[in-house]
């Protein structure tokens, strides 16, 4: 009996230990693998990206901002800057550092890989959106530009990342920044979300939790110094201004073209009909293309025909065929003109 108990304990420990070693992402081996990344290269590339950000946003880069964004002590940050200078990637103009053309194209290569990878994760995988950025932060230092170009070809050479940032072309071209922070909208104005800043990740997670996504239509309801209240696809969102500042929008000047009331496909009960207005931009990649291919396009008439015995999915009659759509997706398809039979 004692020996059996002993065996049981040994067996359990072996099981727990191998779980600790091999567990995906959180296991020891996965951690070692990540730690093996070349640290020096990571620092250089991150610093370059930071310089590029400053340039793109017309802001000045300081030693303090570098050490802040790389979470390095100032001495180490200074060493990184020295290395960058030695490599000819940045130059000192006297009062500040600026990127050389070589440094700029290096930075754009890194950014291209980063944004392509984010787009790939968004479109082609089931990875949660709060993890896109952090995974891309690792991938940008590992993937070669050739591999990135191959990936781009595979996913149809996308032009935007899922946060609304343009992906630099192979030649390093990038269009100019457009859009205004949401906090500059006046009450009652309509706008479309152009960009959601993905750093810091805690703020981004908060935006995602509100169900916000690039391409979403919003209407400013009320703004004050301590809160911003707006409507997004028919639902009210309230954010602190400091968080809302991470959203840039494009004003829709002509409010006649704006759809003002939103009903969702999932609102239809069996027997009801409606007309599709559009699919939310949050439905991406293959899933979006599949819905479009099956006729879920603006103007399609749709009728909720049958419900599965579990209540979800629902079978909709669209363009003469019965298509089962899960509630999760049906709630991201907008409709109008609901008629009951």
């Amino acid at each position, binding site marked *: 009996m004692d020996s059996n108990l002993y065996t049981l304990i040994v*067996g359990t420990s072996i099981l727990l230990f191998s779980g600790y070693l091999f567990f995906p992402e959180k296991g020891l081996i996965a951690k070692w693998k990540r730690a093996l990344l070349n640290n020096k290269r990571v620092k250089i590339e991150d610093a370059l990206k930071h310089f590029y950000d400053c340039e793109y946003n017309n802001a000045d880069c300081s030693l303090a901002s570098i050490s802040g964004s790389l979470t390095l002590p100032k001495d180490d940050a200074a060493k990184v800057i020295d290395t960058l200078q030695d490599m000819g990637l940045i130059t000192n103009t006297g009062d500040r550092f600026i990127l050389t053309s070589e440094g700029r194209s290096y930075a754009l290569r890194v950014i291209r890989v980063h944004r392509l990878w984010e787009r790939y994760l968004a479109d082609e995988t*089931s990875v949660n959106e709060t993890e896109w950025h952090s995974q891309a932060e690792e991938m940008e230092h590992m993937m070669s530009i050739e591999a990135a170009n191959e990936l781009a070809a595979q996913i149809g050479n996308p032009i935007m990342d899922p946060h609304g940032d343009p992906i630099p072309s192979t030649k390093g071209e990038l269009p100019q920044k457009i859009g205004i922070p949401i906090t500059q909208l006046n009450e009652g104005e309509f706008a479309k979300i152009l960009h959601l800043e993905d750093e810091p990740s805690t703020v981004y997670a908060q935006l995602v939790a509100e169900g916000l996504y690039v391409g979403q239509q919003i209407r400013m309801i009320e703004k004050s110094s301590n809160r911003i209240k707006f409507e997004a696809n028919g639902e009210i969102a309230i954010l602190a201004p400091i968080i809302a500042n991470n959203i840039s929008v494009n004003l829709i000047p002509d409010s006649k073209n704006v759809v003002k009331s939103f009903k969702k496909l999932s609102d239809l009960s069996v027997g009801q009909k409606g007309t599709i207005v559009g699919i939310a931009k949050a439905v991406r990649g293959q899933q979006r293309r599949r819905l*479009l291919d099956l006729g879920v396009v603006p103007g399609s008439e749709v009728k909720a025909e049958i*419900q599965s015995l579990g209540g979800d*999915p629902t*079978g909709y009659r669209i363009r003469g065929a019965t298509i089962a759509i899960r509630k999760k997706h049906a709630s991201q398809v907008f409709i109008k003109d609901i008629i009951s039979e």
Partner: protein
Amino acid sequence: MKENEILINRANELRWELGETLHDSLLESIYKDAAEISKKTVKSFGDKESYAFDIKLDKILTSKLYGFPIMFILLAFVFWITIVGANVPSAFIASILLDTVHPWLKSLSYSIGLPFFIDGVLLDGAYLSMAWVIAVMLPPMAIFFPMYTLLEDFGYLPRVSFNMDSLFRKAGAHGKQALTMAMGFGCNAAGVVAARVIDSPRERLLAIITNNFSLCNGRWPTQILIASIFIGSLAPPYLAGLASAAAVVSVALLGIILSLVVSYSLSKTALKGEASAYSLELPPYRPPRIMQTLYTSLIDRTIFVLWRAIVFAVPAGIVIWLVANITIEGSSLAQIFIEWSNPFGLLIGLNGVILLAYIIAIPANEIVIPTVLMLTVLSAGLTGVGEGSGVIFELSSIQDTAIILHAGGWTALTGICLMLFSLLHNPCSTTIYTIYKETRSIKWTVFSTVMPLIMGIVVCFFVAQIWHIIS
């Protein structure tokens, strides 16, 4: 060449200007045209609404009240017909291939004086295992596959996946996995092929990897036999039948639960990186064509699977015979391995015989029990039973089988652990090969092979150790 580059650059500029809405906008235009054309050309006549019958049928088959009972009754009926209907032809084929042709071949080889070694390898090894596989595999598949195909052709199966989707969605899987699972109860290799109907990569991989948790045709007889010998005896005699039936059903249910649990954990971890795009079209009902179905399901599924099984069974038969007959210093390879692996076998509630049987009977679960019996007789040195070393056999009487197993040192724990291990071990080689053919990935093939095996070893280990502590 330069001109072409300018063209591409212009295309890229235009892409920036258009933004990301091009694809949406193109499909919107195409469907607008499609609507216009179909409005001009399609008319409905008669006073009733078109598709009235289909809609009515759909309402019944997916209703909260009738949907589940209908599905349960239909599937239970298919399995019942398969199990009951297969007995007679199985016995018939066995009586020809095993009881008539085999002795005849043996006497022929004796009369022409074939050396013992060649006679053993060819007739007792290769021929016998092939004949065995045909006898036990062909009839159930020839019944199950056509029935399944009829339901499929009629259009009922897409409704099953529609109904089951909410359950599978919670496990990160596709409702169609219910169908590949059902197919897996017939044959895992066929279940893996059936996963083709799932067009989303992640969900398809889930269905392929977890198909092995559906207790296939080759494992039901093992479960039933072991349950009636070991579980039935634990209960009072008048409850013996019920207890063993309950045990078999519990193992099958455990398989279903595990396939959902494994699907869930995989979709949260290893398969997170795979694409997922849910879509399910409910096709119109169509009257099935019975003759055509019989023909195609026989050719496409039954013969296909059977052929693959035979291809793997023949070499395995040779190996089985050889390990029992090649001797080193007086003991056969089988005995050496059994003695060597016995301590590990006992640790997980099994024994060396079972471990060896599962290794050499990898081509088909159907020949595991005959191999176990042969090896038990060989290793326990029993006389008066069996057909000789290396010749796999089965006994018609459950009592006689029980006597052999008890003589081999089996206990109720061995029985329980064997039932669990029969559910949780690597897929048969036919299925492994099919997984590779379907996924074209060595990584996922190895994973689907090793993962259930590790689960089986872990589960059996804990059951055995806890059993020892309690009893």
